[in-house]
């Protein structure tokens, strides 16, 4: 019987207090005379009582008995009604503690968004228009297309209820040759790439609950575990439990991969490759590999002297496989720097079949950043396993729904069709060149926007 893929979100509130974005300061010397003045206007006890109860905040910042004498600033949502009603008496400012979250890539707003998604599994919805910069580095210089009339299907409210997000890992035959494809299908183009040294228990459990996969270093595994892809080097092949169907091998040469593949007959062997700008190597490797996992640093950059951002390296890898006429034969997994729901469809549009998430999972678990996490890990607080698992499940539920939003808007019925559809994306540089150069002349600075 048909069963629709669904991720069950459940409330998993923050275990550690999140610094509120806003600070509220009431100037007591101005507040007291103001409140006395307000109360003096009351003509009877009923009005006096109503005046006392009536506070200029619908979120409860002044909800305590003493109201403005002790504002509950954690409830502040920055609406400024209290400031408007009492200019000079109340100040609302940005909480410096909020600004400390994350690093230069996982900016405070990104961290706050992941925490919110992990706590309730919902799609973040807000009113008013977009409030950010016009464009920005990396993913922020890319917009996705939509269609005015084309839908994935006319069934359901928006048609997105019937969008397939199923993808395959492994090698496929593109012509009929009598051999079965050696592939594993998963229901969402996202896998966990567990950083080494992390207790992978909740990540593995979240993968199991969602039917997805978690890549975990062999040294962090105890025997055969469900929904896990062991990550190993060639020297560790003998230690891999034969029950694993998919194995990720750290390789830096085609020969190394061939050796591993020969030692693991019948398995889906993913080649884990550090992104370093060697597109020719990717193309060579792809002639043999079941799948390639292209890994960037935690900020989405290649590990090379002139690193490209994940957008450019993914496009290059995808195009190298297209040029080699083998793009449809294997799956390309891309990871590093996936820090928001929007990064998933954008990376797929650039040519990935699947994206892997690393630090984002740790952020969902409320890790603490100790400076820049480009390659080193932020530290994790201790938490309950059940809570941690649900946080990750919620994150995936939220990102799944947001992937459907983007796909639905594009009129995509299958996520597979989004792969490499660069014609359905708009890049800041391209639009500037196409639209503004004919109007305003040559661009003064042609440097590309990159995430640093």
């Amino acid at each position, binding site marked *: 019987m048909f069963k629709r893929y669904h991720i069950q979100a459940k409330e998993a509130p923050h275990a550690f207090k999140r610094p509120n974005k*806003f600070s509220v300061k009431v100037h007591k010397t101005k507040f007291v005379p103001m409140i006395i003045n307000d109360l003096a*206007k009351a003509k009877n006890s009923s*009005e006096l009582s*109503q*005046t006392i109860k*009536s506070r200029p905040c*619908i979120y409860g910042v002044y909800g305590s008995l003493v109201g403005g004498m002790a504002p509950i600033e954690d409830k502040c949502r*920055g*609406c*400024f*009604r209290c*400031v*408007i*009603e*009492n*200019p*000079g008496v109340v*100040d*609302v*400012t*940005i909480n410096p503690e909020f600004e400390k979250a994350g690093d230069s890539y996982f900016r405070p707003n990104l961290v706050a968004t992941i925490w919110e998604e992990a706590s309730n599994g919902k799609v*973040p*919805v*807000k*009113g*008013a*228009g*977009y*409030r*950010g*910069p*016009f*464009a920005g580095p990396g993913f922020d210089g890319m*917009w*996705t*297309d*939509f269609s*005015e*009339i084309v*839908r994935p299907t*006319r069934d359901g*409210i928006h048609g997105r209820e019937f969008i397939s997000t199923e993808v395959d890992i492994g090698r496929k035959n593109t012509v009929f040759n009598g051999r079965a494809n050696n592939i594993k299908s998963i229901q969402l183009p996202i896998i966990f790439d567990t950083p080494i040294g992390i207790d992978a228990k909740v990540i593995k459990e979240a993968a199991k609950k969602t039917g997805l996969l978690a890549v975990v270093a062999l040294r962090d595994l105890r025997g055969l575990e469900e929904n896990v892809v062991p990550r190993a080097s060639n020297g560790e092949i003998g230690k891999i439990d034969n029950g694993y169907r998919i194995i990720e091998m750290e390789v830096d040469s085609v020969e190394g991969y061939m050796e591993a593949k020969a030692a693991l007959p019948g398995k889906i062997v993913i080649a884990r490759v550090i992104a370093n700008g060697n597109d020719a190597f990717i193309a060579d490797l792809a002639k043999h590999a079941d799948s390639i996992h292209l890994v960037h640093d935690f900020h989405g950059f290649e590990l090379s002297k002139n690193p490209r951002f994940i957008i450019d390296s993914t496009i290059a890898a995808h195009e190298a496989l297209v040029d080699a006429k083998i793009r449809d034969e294997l799956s390309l997994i891309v990871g590093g720097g996936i820090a928001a*729901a*929007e990064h998933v469809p*954008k990376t797929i549009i650039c040519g990935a079949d699947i994206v892997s998430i690393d630090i984002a999972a740790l952020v969902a678990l409320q890790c603490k950043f100790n400076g820049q996490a480009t390659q080193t890990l932020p530290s994790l607080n201790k938490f309950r396993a059940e809570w941690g698992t649900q946080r990750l499940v919620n994150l995936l539920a939220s990102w799944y729904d*947001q992937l459907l*939003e*983007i796909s*639905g*808007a594009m*009129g995509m019925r299958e996520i597979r069709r989004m792969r490499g559809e660069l*014609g359905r994306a*708009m890049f800041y540089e391209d639009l500037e060149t196409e*639209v*503004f150069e004919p*109007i*305003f*002349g040559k*661009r*003064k600075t042609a440097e590309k926007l990159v995430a640093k």
Partner: protein
Amino acid sequence: MNQTKLKILGHHRNKIHEGVEKLAEGGFDYGGALGNYRWTQDLLMSTWYQANKGKPPKSMEYKTGLSGGGFDKIHFKIDSELEYGTANADLSISLNKKSSGEKISIPLPVYGGGMSYGSVSLQVMLSRAMAAKELGTFTSTGEGGYPDELSEYKDNIITQVATGLFGVKEETIQRAKIVEIKYAQGAKPGLGGHLLGDKVTSNVAKMRESVPWVSLYSPFPFHSVYSVEDHKKHVDWLRTVNKKALISVKVSTPIDVDMVAVGSYYAGANIIQIDGSYGGTGAAPEIAKKNIAMPIEYAIPKVHKFLESEGVREEITIMASGGIRTAWDVAKAIALGADGCVIGTSELVALGCTHCGNCESGRGCPIGLTSTDEELSFLVDPSWGYKKIVNMYRSWEIQWKAILDYFSMKSITELRGRTDLMYHEDYGG
């Protein structure tokens, strides 16, 4: 509500009105907590100032925000201080360029964008309608029906027909001089509309013929439109219901927005409204607002030039929207190729909006703008609100006239497509 409650709410209402005026005088700094890249503290406060005084401020940055791109980096080649209040010019634009149909002009190159009953309060709708009447322009109902209280202003109200057909009746289509078909909205292109259950009060539900307190989804797209031919049938259907009405087609900005525009021309539209991706909304997924569709600054020249190359530019009015915040944004949009602009958020800012983004949750806007809560809605007084909107536009008129005077133009229609009068900070080196 009892008298005591009304008195207390009136007290808050007065404080809000007075507070907005006081803040608009400047001298307050909230360290980035008020405003954002697009609507900076200065833009918010200067709009409040203009809504109070009917003229631009002297000390605040009232022309651009800090988004670092688009309109915020495009400027007119003006090398001296403009003198405000002395110039005169014709600011009117035609909304029907076709040889057939009623000739409708508006005396200023803007009208109000669609905001539905439910997403905003009746008091806000009334404020906007009264302002439109005073100014001689239009405001749009959005998709949520046409409250009877607005019928007094019917000659200045555009009826919107959107995918959910909420509150759409032949009677209200027949009442309107302009009927707007909404295909997409810039803030959430391709996603349809969403009114959260908390805002679906009994009155809103009655108007929309739905169930109180149950969320409403306006599907995407029109399930009866698969092609440009279907689109034409749509336009024909509306013309059958109301033969006199001008038809406006509201679309957002996909890659092929130029093709979409020419399709609407083919379908017989009088107005094509292109709604850029950074436009306002009562509620939208954050992922949509930031990532789907292109900003209006790119879409305007694409559409304008393509319609020119197709030889049909003089037969259709292009109205730009989605991220148009100031008089200067309007002037730049026109110089990029639009005939005029459709304004939404700025009108709410004139009424005290802080662009905080809390419109969608619970009871809605804390100062009663995007709210249907009885108490919160009371915080907006239409007789106060319409004056604010009118004042803001009077200030904008002063600025447009000064810009036109600087370039020795007599009519704002002369500014259309004059990209040669502007420069971009990043270009021309």
